[in-house]
């Protein structure tokens, strides 16, 4: 048995730019994907909005999902080998806030390589989990960006520079944008709470939930889906 792999945190913007596979010699060794900021990941944990789900072929029981974070869209595929995840996927109606833990996979397609997540577990969560995930992922990403600058000799970092030669300011900008989305949401939410108190309490919870949903959709960067 192998030591369990930690679930790494990274934004869709970074994961979608990762295409370098690292596999060690020997059977049953895990496959890692090296990311542009030098993270070696096998398992990831993401929280975002499930935008849509589609069965890849009719009756294949193989589903593709798009999950959005403030920086882009993760593509996840679940099939019968992930029964626990599949069970939840079948019942879920997008759009919905979800948490997904899964393994990353790199595929060689006709138009280059693309990356997807194979979920081990899918669950519906509230926006608190998403907020904390964005904060936590921002923090880990900042740590990696800083290491890219200070530890150029370490193995994975040297390789990341060689493979991707990333523009670190671009990654800093994405982290900044993601944090601001969350921060603005807090502030809007606070203002709204106060407005609510002043108004007559006829506004029902259901309405508020709908408002929030629309607000969130406006905030997501949908360029990745539209571009595809």
């Amino acid at each position, binding site marked *: 048995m192998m030591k*369990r792999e930690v679930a790494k945190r990274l934004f869709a913007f970074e994961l979608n730019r990762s295409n370098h596979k690292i596999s060690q010699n020997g059977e049953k060794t895990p496959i890692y994907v090296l990311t542009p900021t030098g993270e070696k990941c096998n398992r990831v944990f993401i929280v975002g909005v499930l935008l849509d789900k589609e069965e890849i072929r009719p009756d294949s029981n193989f589903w593709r999902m798009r999950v959005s974070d403030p920086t882009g869209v993760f593509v996840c595929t679940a099939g019968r080998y992930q029964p626990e995840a599949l069970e939840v996927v079948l019942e879920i109606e997008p759009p919905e806030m979800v948490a997904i*833990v899964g393994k990353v996979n790199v595929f060689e397609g006709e138009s280059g390589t693309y990356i997807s997540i194979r979920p081990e577990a*899918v669950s519906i969560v509230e926006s608190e989990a998403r907020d904390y*995930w964005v*904060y936590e992922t921002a923090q*880990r990403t900042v740590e990696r960006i800083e290491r890219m600058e200070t530890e150029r000799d370490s193995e994975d970092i040297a390789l990341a520079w060689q493979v991707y030669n990333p523009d670190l300011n671009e990654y800093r900008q994405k*982290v900044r944008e993601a*944090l*601001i989305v969350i*921060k603005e949401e807090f502030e809007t939410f606070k203002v709204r709470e106060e407005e609510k108190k002043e108004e007559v309490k006829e506004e029902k919870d259901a309405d508020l939930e709908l408002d929030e949903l629309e607000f969130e959709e406006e905030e997501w960067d949908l360029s990745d889906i539209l571009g595809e």
Partner: protein
Amino acid sequence: MKGELVEEKVEIISKLTEQITEKFKRSGYEVNPKEISKRLELLMFEFKVPEREAIRTVNNYLMKELDVSREQLSMESPFIKIGEITRPNQWVSFKAKIVQLWDSTSPNVSQVGLVGDETGIIKFVTWAKSGKPEVAEGKSYIFRNLVTDSFGGRMQVNVNRNSEIEEIAEDVPLPPREIKVTGALIAIQQNSGLIQRCNECRRTVSKGICPVHGKTESYDDLRIKGVLDDGENFYEIILNEDNIKALTGIGLEEAKKIAKENLERGVVLQTLRNRLLGKYFTVNGTRGERYLIVNEIDFFRDELGEKIDELLTRLGAEQ
């Protein structure tokens, strides 16, 4: 039977080959693993030479081929921290304290227990045939030339004939045992939910069978075995009925009711997964060998505003 035997042989050979290759690599010599495997196999399985002698013979052969002396081939493994041990079959040295000694259950093992430094704690095994002196609980030592191994999914280190153990006056600190972690609950294992335990030994009973007492009387219990992950480390945690009730309002009685209404115990697990999986928790716990023993657990609810501002400052101004 024969297939298994072949498989076992292949495994022994590949393990030894890796150890030898590693040893030469450390001194800057590349050797051909295929050649080593071939020689080991011939010696050990064709000519039935004992393992120890086979290794020595291959080592001598390689030293002669490469024209290096035993001194040049530095015998000392690199010094590392225990927290860095992640792969089996590596030669390592470290400074550590004996945390705990267990009773050895095998005549082949002279001592077994836990050693630790400030980065982690790991199981160690001293083989009886290594002929090494015994170590004492609470004392610190320099361990040289141990081999890492993986057993039952956990890493451990083995003390062998080539190892050296030297007692030191220094007191090596251990990692804090009480920790506070915030992470996502990324897995709830199958053997969670409404379970049954053996009346005699409290072990979990599956289909009315206790692993020790066979067919047995049992009682219901509620627990969750799960994995909390903060993106840097994972912690295996066990939640008892009190923890679960505090988080979800579902205690043993409620769980039994859910199972009864649905005519299916599995629904309890499903319900707990729906309520808890993928969410963030803060745990105050005590580190055990495998599990983080939960003293207190709650949904994460701190204000993020300030933390986000700090991070934005750290990112610096837009460029």
